[in-house]
């Protein structure tokens, strides 16, 4: 039983890896950015667990800025990906401009909330 699930997991992993290698480089860069943002958020949560959450607004603003920019990057990836039929009329410059605008608003609010 364990061996079959182990083999399943390995096969899963291999096929995922091979499928992912086929994605274009631009999308991989965005994925890297998303991974970095989520990783930073995790570090902050661990730090909060160790040290305590006293200035709660600072903790929230830190975590939410990471999560927010990760989510916005995923939205950008969706809009720029050529395989998505719904967004084929959207020029990638417009998608990127929206991304920058939303990030600007996000970070302005974060700076106000940081305290």
């Amino acid at each position, binding site marked *: 039983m364990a061996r079959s*699930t182990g083999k*399943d997991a390995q*096969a*899963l992993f291999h*096929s*995922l890896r091979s*499928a*992912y290698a086929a994605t274009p480089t631009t999308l991989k860069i965005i994925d890297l950015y998303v991974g970095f943002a989520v990783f930073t958020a995790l570090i902050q949560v661990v730090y909060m667990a160790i040290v305590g959450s006293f200035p*709660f*607004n600072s903790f*929230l*603003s830190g975590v*939410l800025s990471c*999560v*927010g920019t990760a*989510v*916005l990057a*995923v*939205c*950008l990836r*969706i*809009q720029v990906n050529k*395989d*998505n039929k*719904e*967004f084929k009329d*959207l020029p990638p410059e417009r*998608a990127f401009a*929206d*991304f920058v*605008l*939303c990030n600007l*608003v*996000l970070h302005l*609010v*974060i700076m*106000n*909330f940081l305290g």
Partner: protein
Amino acid sequence: MVGKTESQNGAVKATAAPAMNLESDLFSNFSFKSFKLKTKQQELLLRVSILGLVYILAFITRLFSVLRYESMIHEFDPYFNYRTTLFLTEKGFYEFWNWFDSESWYPLGRIIGGTLYPGLMVTAAFIYWTLRFLRFAVHIREVCVLTAPFFASNTTVVAYFFGKEIWDSGAGLVAAAFIAICPGYISRSVAGSYDNEGVAIFALLLTFYLFVKAVNTGSLAWALASAFGYFYMVSAWGGYVFIINLIPLYVLVLLITGRYSMRLYVAYNCMYVLGMLLAMQIRFVGFQHVQSGEHMAAMGVFFLMQVFYFLDWVKYMLSDTKLFQAFLRITVTSAIAVGALALGVGTASGYISPWTGRFYSLLDPTYAKDNIPIIASVSEHQPTAWSSFMFDFHILLFLFPAGLYFCFKKLSDATIFIVMYGLTSMYFAGVMVRLILVATPAVCLISAIAVSATIKNLTSLLRTKSKTAVAGSSKGTGGSKASSKASFDQSQPFQKNGAIALLLGAFYLLSKYATHCTWVTSEAYSSPSIVLAARGAHGNRVIFDDYREAYFWLRQNTPPDAKVMSWWDYGYQITAMGNRTVIVDNNTWNNTHIATVGRAMSSYEDEAYEIMRSLDVDYVLVVFGGVTGYSSDDINKFLWMVRIGGGVFPVIKEPDYLVNGDYRVDKGAAPKMLNCL
């Protein structure tokens, strides 16, 4: 449609007379082109003028009380808003944001900066500063009085765009017209009713419109706009909880019915994260978006969406379905386990606070009556009777199911949203009278869809007859076609007459609606509660300005640091117009303090004197309506004082004041009632 017949006529003319020179052919083509342009321009002109008239109508129909009495602030709550706006315009934004008021809730004071929704005050102050900048010398009171009608007009414009987004521009126009005069909305937005709802309904509809637009287009810019709309709503009214629960519910319904798409992901995520962050800037809301049970649905759906779309992405990348099934099983079980664990731990440890009384009583209507008498005592929080529905909605009430039928016939992301908004808001409107206001935009929009679709069908029936007749005569084709058209023409007269009759009926109903709304506005919703009118002995009209005279007496004849004790209804008015410190006011944030006042009012005079000495009271204000026949005075409210006081101090027992279970105030009243304060 008419353009096409013109083109056919032009073509026929050109072919039937080959001897005609080219100029006539060009002329007919030219007239065809200019006619088409004119139709489009005509349509645009018609739409703009209708919208302009509806805008003006929405404003002027709310001005009854200004014309009859004078331009003043009505009711109780608006006086507090007026006082804070005055403070804001005089002292500036920083002072306002950090204001600690020691004039209300006497020994305790109130942190006004942190316990109010600043949207309304900031909006009015902004309009005031803009007008001042343009060198209009207006007084802040005029701006405050007219803020609500101005925003009602803006709501009609938003309703037009929303209707256009859901159905088409015809429905948008009808929706704008409906919402301009609907009594359910007018009741809280007449001139002088300077309360949060006047601005909040505009913000609510704006947020919903921008969100639906974002889901339809999938653009980050629209989602950002809807986040700003949500921020405005949070700053304006506590009812924003409705938005933050309806939108996740809508997303959930779309996910379940399989209508999810990438646009939904973009729209909801951007709006949720940015909206949540912006909302936490309001001090009164604070960290509730991550800590309160009422907001957890949004967070739950957020995480669910991440899992859902991640699985979708993995499925797209994997070509082998068996592996995907295994992966799916593992991920889903682990995600559900983690989510349930987090929710359980949070709720059990008390970190995630449970639903507060105000909103819990919406789900369980009997909760407030048993446990929280203050919430149960407010007349606006009672369940709604059918007569209130009919009074506030009139024909919209039966157009609402018709509109639902049309929405279900043409299901799209936008119509699903409006159906959900309509159904949930109607349920809540049934639980609490005050929430008819929230249901009004949904009912207007859905009824507009019904009206617009019906009238469109009827008029197209009328037009088909004329079109087939003209086409039949100008084409002159083979006999079979002519005979079928002839049989078709025979049934046409009945259909055409039926259509005309139905159209006339529809116009009659709509005109009745307009009359009813105007009558309701004039009779029921335009009285400032602070000035009363009655008929004298000879039928002449007598105006009672007793409230304001009393407050000005307080202002002019008492020392500036005098403290006034009264029941909490009058607190805001006393501080705003009398400019004296009060013990309790309409904010009702401290139940024990109010119960102390209630106890003082209902104890024997010597006990009451002790309580009042401990609170440093100098004056007691009591409203008595026996001389003029005014029925909502303090004697009427006395039992509530007893109940609220008894809720905290068991010394006060309600049966002491009743005679055989009846409440009597004449000589035969209970002895405790006769001897108390």
